[in-house]
């Protein structure tokens, strides 16, 4: 009943662990059988190993979390060599979440992943563009269009493009990414935020700005998913603050074909399971036979 097919890839259920919040799965395998998941999006990968940001990396806000991890990861090669074999063995859909600082780094990363067993490449365009003074690729639609078009040309896997909520115009952004060849759109990444330590009289983070996630952003993310899903034809994967099965239902009714769960994994490591179970129960109680029947239903009734 929960099965859902997205650009040819079959997910057991529409609940995917979000990138950067689930490592490569190891840590969560002690809590439950990860084959229960719809999918896992890997920690964000870059061509080269990254050590991440200095200074404070976490800050808790009212119902939210600001992180400044800075894409700490072992690099694509080490991922393919050391992590992917384990992930493959888990019996769930594997998304390789790919970031980069230059177009070239994206392209090289994709080429390396092409030859592997990853099911989907999730292109994270929220990364700062080194050549454009650090403004993320995902802010201006034209910049994103270029990256996606070039990546599409070399990518042999289904290509999911993950949008930043900081995009100037999220609807236009999604439409342009679709036009450039994205097979699906996932959204949202974290919101640009900051905090100030009033005793030290300075920003908490060395980088000043960092990314807000968690329940605080849920209803903004939901709105974006609703808007985007009526502007594109490709499947939309929704996320942002999902921490209960009810939230997942909201995102699906807003138009998401699947959802990702991020920060909530930190709050309770078994939360994805609970969401899957709650979703199933809700569907039975409300006589939904398939996820597809629920997708976007709120648009019909608006």
């Amino acid at each position: 009943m929960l099965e859902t097919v997205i650009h040819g890839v079959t997910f057991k259920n529409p609940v995917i662990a979000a990138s950067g919040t689930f490592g490569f799965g190891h840590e969560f395998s002690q809590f439950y059988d990860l084959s229960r998941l719809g999918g896992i999006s890997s920690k964000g990968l870059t061509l080269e190993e990254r050590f991440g940001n200095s200074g404070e990396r976490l800050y808790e806000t009212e119902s939210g979390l600001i992180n400044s991890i800075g894409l700490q990861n072992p690099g694509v090669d080490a991922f393919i060599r050391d992590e992917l074999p384990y992930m493959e063995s888990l019996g769930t859909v594997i998304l390789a979440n790919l970031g980069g600082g230059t177009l070239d780094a994206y392209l090289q990363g994709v080429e390396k992943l092409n030859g592997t067993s990853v099911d989907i490449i999730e292109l994270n365009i929220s990364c700062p563009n080194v050549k454009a003074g650090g403004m993320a690729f995902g802010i201006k639609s034209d910049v994103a269009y270029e990256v996606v078009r070039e990546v599409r040309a070399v990518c042999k896997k289904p290509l999911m493009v993950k949008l930043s909520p900081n995009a100037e115009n999220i609807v236009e952004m999604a439409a342009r990414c679709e036009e450039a060849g994205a097979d699906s759109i996932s959204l949202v990444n974290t919101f640009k935020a900051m905090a100030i330590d009033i005793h030290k009289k300075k920003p908490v983070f060395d980088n000043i700005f960092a990314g807000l996630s968690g329940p605080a952003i849920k209803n903004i993310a939901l709105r974006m998913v609703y808007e985007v899903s009526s502007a594109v034809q490709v499947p939309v994967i929704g996320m942002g603050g999902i921490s209960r099965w009810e939230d997942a239902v909201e995102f699906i009714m807003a138009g998401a074909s699947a959802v990702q769960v991020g920060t909530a994994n930190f709050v309770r490591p078994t939360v994805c399971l609970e969401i899957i179970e709650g979703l199933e129960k809700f569907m039975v109680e409300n006589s939904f036979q398939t996820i597809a029947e629920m997708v976007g239903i709120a648009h019909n009734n608006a």
Partner: protein
Amino acid sequence: MPASCLKSDILSHKEIFSGVYQMTCRFPGPKAPGQFFMVRGWQGYPLLSRPISVNDADEDTVTFVYEVRGQGTQLLSALRPGESVELTGPVGSGFPVEKLSGRVAVVAGGIGIAPLLYAAKSMKGCEAELFCGFRGKSYLVEAFAPYVSAVHVASDSGAEGHHGFVTDLLDAADFDAVITCGPEIMMKKVARACREAGVLCYVSMERHMACGIGACLGCTCKTLHGAKCVCKDGPVFLGEDVMIDA
């Protein structure tokens, strides 16, 4: 010793000192000294669970000693026996008590004393002495009696024992090993003294944590061997590895 995530009954819960609580919960399975749990005594808010060390444990239970600092520990302190908390753990790599022998100094600063009790209890065949510093009056010290041969107390206010730093009392050279938990500045001094005296030293680090299990990479500290997750690679590290600029 894989971690689990359970709803756990509170068996006892009392204020053992002004603002310091001792809570015992049902939690089956082994726990190592220096490990901790992500503790949650509330529903949605605050968002994150709070890391609290194992203060004592047996096969079926775990005991925590914690100080009320902010909203999380405040909410925790309002819970009563019979109510429940959510526990994720045990997590972290603890004090390698099996590697310790001979004379061991156990050095605590404030609430840092909490994990050291279970550590002291777990050291076999060592002769341990407790060095502990407090802001004012001491707490939890009596509980060490069965495990240590001497107790040295210091206080910032002079309310009890030596008026000054606990590090004033410690001569690292008198010991074969030192284990310590407390404010980073105190642990730095201890680690430096140990290095100078060529004494083995283990410190228990603290960082803001989101997941507590090594998934978010938010709790890193610099070590001689690169950045490590305090929650997974620690919280206990070799003093010389983490107190780099000490």
